[in-house]
């Protein structure tokens, strides 16, 4: 159901700080606050669906490591919480880029996924890939080690950005059901709140994996789900846009008429489960849009038939990238779509992608974009 009477709060993580963009439901005029945590990499910021004033931020630095920040007032003030991410037991080795064993080492938190029902519970996807969880509002983090100990861990390998767990999708219809994705291990599903996991990569094909039936090793870039149809999953893989109609048990390609099926983001319209969005990127060696034209592609048929959305987006000399966590949709009507670029622009559309406008143009490189749809009281 559409939420129409409040506004929106867009949370933008960048290479040099976090920004909070707010607007009323018209989404025409924006207030920009930030940089929060100036100079630090903010890989991800996301608000609790239970208490939208509670926002979590992953703050990191090559010098000073990982911090987790929590706001309880909608991003006005922040408090550092526990930043101790320690693997359960001896973590062993995964594959290095050249196939040799390499020790598991914590590097950073890529993604924070707040629980759908409890504001004190949050999942964290980290590099080197593992899933952590707090149930006490960030006072402590514990690994859900059934994933890393699934048995295929020694065969996981890093993608170009590192061996990161970057996607966490919670099923609103089945509280124990979690989907995650790792570059480059693939997608996994748990039915028991993260205790045990199974790989869900049947149907994926990757040129760099000789075995067409490989259980793991695929470079999944992003998975998206519409909450009303949790068995339907959409995936932007390294190459290929994929779809599953059975909770990931099998996948089929829906790249259709896209100009290139390489890319990072994928998302679903808030009110139309068959309407999906991607931003095609030329190739894995040329991380920019084809022909210097920044185009969002929309399919209203759940894939295969795609239309280019260009109105308001640069259509010449544009060579930015849109990274995997840098697209989000609001729940207003019409649905709003937002994405950020490595050139520091955050574009928004308040009419489901028909027209676009740069909300901000000159931020540091954007790593992530999330949006909160706010209620009529401005808070929740």
């Amino acid at each position, binding site marked *: 159901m559409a939420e129409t009477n409040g506004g929106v709060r867009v949370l933008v993580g960048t*290479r040099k700080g976090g920004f909070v963009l707010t607007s009323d439901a018209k989404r025409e005029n924006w207030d920009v606050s930030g940089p929060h945590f*100036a*100079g*630090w*990499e903010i*890989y991800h910021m996301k608000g609790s669906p239970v208490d939208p004033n509670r926002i979590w931020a992953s703050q*990191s*630095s*090559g*010098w*000073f*490591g*990982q*911090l987790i920040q929590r706001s309880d007032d909608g991003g006005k003030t922040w408090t*550092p919480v526990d*930043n*101790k991410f*320690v693997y359960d037991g001896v973590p062993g080795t995964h594959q290095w880029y050249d196939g040799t064993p390499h020790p598991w080492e914590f590097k*950073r938190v890529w993604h924070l996924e707040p629980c759908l029902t409890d504001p004190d519970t949050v999942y964290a996807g980290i590099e080197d890939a593992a899933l952590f969880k707090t149930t006490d509002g960030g006072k402590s983090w514990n690994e859900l080690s059934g994933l890393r100990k699934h048995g295929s861990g020694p065969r996981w390998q890093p*993608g*170009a*950005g*590192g061996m990161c767990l970057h996607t966490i999708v919670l099923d609103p219809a089945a509280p124990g059901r979690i989907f995650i994705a790792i*570059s480059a291990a693939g997608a996994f599903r748990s039915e028991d709140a993260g205790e045990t996991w199974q790989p869900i990569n049947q149907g994926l094909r990757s040129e760099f994996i000789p075995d067409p039936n490989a259980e793991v090793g695929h470079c999944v*870039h992003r998975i998206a789900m519409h909450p009303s149809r949790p068995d339907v999953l959409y995936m932007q893989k390294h190459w290929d846009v994929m779809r599953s109609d059975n909770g990931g048990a099998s996948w089929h390609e829906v790249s259709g008429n896209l100009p290139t099926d390489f890319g*990072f983001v994928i998302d679903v319209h808030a009110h139309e489960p068959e309407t999906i969005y991607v931003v095609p990127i030329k190739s*894995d060696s040329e*991380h920019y849009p084809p022909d210097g034209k920044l185009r969002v592609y929309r399919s209203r048929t759940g894939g295969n038939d795609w239309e280019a959305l260009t109105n308001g987006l640069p259509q010449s000399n544009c060579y930015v*990238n849109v*990274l*995997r966590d840098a697209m989000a949709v609001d729940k207003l009507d019409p649905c709003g779509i937002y994405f950020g670029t*490595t050139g520091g622009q955050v574009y928004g559309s308040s009419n489901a992608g028909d027209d676009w406008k740069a909300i901000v143009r000159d931020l540091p490189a954007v*790593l992530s974009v999330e949006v909160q749809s706010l209620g009529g009281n401005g808070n929740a």
Partner: protein
Amino acid sequence: MKPVPIRVVLPAHLRTLSGAGMEITVPVAGPVTQRSILDALERQYPMLQGTLRDHVTQRRRPFVRFFACEEDYSHESPDTPLPEAVASGAEPFLIVGAIAGGSGLVERP
């Protein structure tokens, strides 16, 4: 043994994080070493835990360096006594971010 106030200079990012000024003092009881200073610093500013040394191994983070009296103590044992000038408060213990360090060297695909 009565704690002695030890002067510590933090790098800019950790000043912002801790809310401390450029130079702070922390009370250290017993031998004045890297470890005893960092222990005292983390007690006074818990948000600095994990930013200077690994939570578990307690090893110095690779892009953090420690100086005292114009000497580099980064590669000394954390239990090596620091110069008397630091122990007496005449000179500060300097925590420095390596000039060429940091991530962001690899694009995040």
